[in-house]
């Protein structure tokens, strides 16, 4: 905390923090204002006398209604939800087991295996989608949710594995040793002792994985083609931008509605999430 005179606190703390918050939240505000702005205001030229870019005097829900009735937005939301949840579950499950093994078990090449898993995370998706597209085609999964459910774990599993590995390493080894002396097998010690303690870590890995798959764009763009299979990110940008015509109101309404589930999850688990990232385990 800043000490000393009151003005110091304002100059070094409140004002910079306030500016930072405004900077971060402005895009969301813009999104909100645009989605409730009537079309006649949206397309008004900037030199018009009554041009007011930062607010609107006539808010309307017409864009939201249009989005829900005239596009497949609801369907996209369901698609995205399904894909994000299933791929998160797969990745968390694999990440838990792999992270535990890498953190606790001694086996040959354990260290290099960990590094290997990490390296796969570093390969850019913009390159990886080319071979993956070939594989998806061979398995005839193109234009189905399974194309994404099975490819998202390629970057989610390394991510979860590493996050959880770090978390497991921070849990004192004695807890598990004590459980094993108490009569638990390694499996039971993991289930009753390690996993419950690692809940904050597991939750933050899950939230991250969910967010990453919710926001994923390039695989969704490449592997899905028909409108009713699309995810929110791809659907909104491909169906509401026709040629050089931007349906700004609906675009922003879609973006706003599409970010609600993630924001909801974050606000719900924020305490666990912070604890998970700062890794505070007390024995």
């Amino acid at each position: 905390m800043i000490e000393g005179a009151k003005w110091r606190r304002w100059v070094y703390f409140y004002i910079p923090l306030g500016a930072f918050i405004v900077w971060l939240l402005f895009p969301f505000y813009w999104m909100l204002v645009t989605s409730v702005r009537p079309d006649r205001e949206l397309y008004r030229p900037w030199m018009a006398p009554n041009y007011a870019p930062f607010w609107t005097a006539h808010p309307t829900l017409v864009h939201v209604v249009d989005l829900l009735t005239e596009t497949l937005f609801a369907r996209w939301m369901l698609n995205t939800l399904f894909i994000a949840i299933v791929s998160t579950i797969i990745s968390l499950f694999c990440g838990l087991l792999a992270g535990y093994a890498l953190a606790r078990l001694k086996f040959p090449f354990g260290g290099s295996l960990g590094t290997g898993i990490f390296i796969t995370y570093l390969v850019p998706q913009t390159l990886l989608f080319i071979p993956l597209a070939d594989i998806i085609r061979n398995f005839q999964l193109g234009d189905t949710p399974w194309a994404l459910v099975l490819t998202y774990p390629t970057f989610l599993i390394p991510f979860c594995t590493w996050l959880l590995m770090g978390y497991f390493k921070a849990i004192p080894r004695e807890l598990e040793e004590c459980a094993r002396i108490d009569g638990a097998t390694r499996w039971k010690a993991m289930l009753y002792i390690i996993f419950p303690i690692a809940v904050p870590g597991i939750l933050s890995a899950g939230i991250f994985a969910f967010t990453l798959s919710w926001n994923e764009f390039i695989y969704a763009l490449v592997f899905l083609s028909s409108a009713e299979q699309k995810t929110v990110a791809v659907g909104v940008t491909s169906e509401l931008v026709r040629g050089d015509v931007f349906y700004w109101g609906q675009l922003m309404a879609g973006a706003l509605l599409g970010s609600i589930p993630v924001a909801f999850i974050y606000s719900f688990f924020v305490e666990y999430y912070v604890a998970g990232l700062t890794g505070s385990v007390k024995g």
Partner: protein
Amino acid sequence: MARVLLRNLNRMYDEVPAVKDVNLEIRDKEFVVLVGPSGCGKTTTLRMVAGLESITSGEVLIGDTVVNDLPPMDRDIAMVFQNYALYPHMSVYDNMAFGLKMRGVDRAEIGKRVQEAADILGIGEYLKRKPRQLSGGQRQRVALGRAIVRHPQVFLFDEPLSNLDAKLRVQMRVELKKLHSRLNTTAVYVTHDQVEAMTLGDRVVVMRGGEVQQVGEPLELYNAPANRFVAGFLGSPAMNFAAVRVSNGASGLRADSPGFSIDVPSEIDPRLRPYAGREVTMGIRPEDLHIANGGDPPGLCLDGIVEVVERLGAEILLDLQVGGQTMVVSVEPTVRAQRGDKLRFVLRPNRLHFFDPASEAAI
């Protein structure tokens, strides 16, 4: 019958031996303390008994069974860890009950045993709390409680008191001693604190560099240390050591150093005779030197200049300069000594120790 037997026990870490050829019998119902400086292999030895560390060679027997290949859960032991290792997400009750649940003990029996242990340790009112809501001493009790509800054949303690503050440590030490006599179970206790070792152990095992230096009852180790290491490790303040040259005098052997020259007591004479003309290490404990009163035999006296006076209350420690060597002497609290005083001390001849300078073994 729950003796613990270690036979030629070895543990290597990447070719570096952590424990070397340890042979030890811990008798039924005995409280044995393994003590030594950090890295001496005491904890590794304990963990091999627990089954948490693999054994490179040798055997561990609990009762009459070789347990080398038994997992920890099947060895019928309980262990108390240095950092308590309480399960943070469980209440005190569940912490204590966990081991019994894992073994399929029925609920009524679990409740009875937990209550019994909680009564012994005085933690009955905390049973519903989580470990983080407890103080260090209370956590320590829970860790002990978790061990005793199991009614194991052997208790293993890995420096259980070293996370407590000094006052609490002394208190818990006494309680541990009481607890052991009440439970009457074999216990192996690891510590680096020689006071804990001396006060708690029926027998004490001093270790260094993975090897057992000496095994014996506390006072036996204190009065007749097998080598210079044991002599210096046990006792606070530590034994004084001085390099002396053994020579043949008119009335028997003499031990000479730049600061003093003393007559070797006749009972040590035959053992020290082969060293005549050579240097050996002489050891004398701080409490075995007294301020001379004039009538003392000059062959047992030495002069020292007081450098530091440490007033501890029950005693005063004087750091002396004796012919270029430093010695610590414990004197009565009534002694009024000042820095720079020159005092004459007499040593107790039957409390002198001599060590071979090469092997460091007691002569």
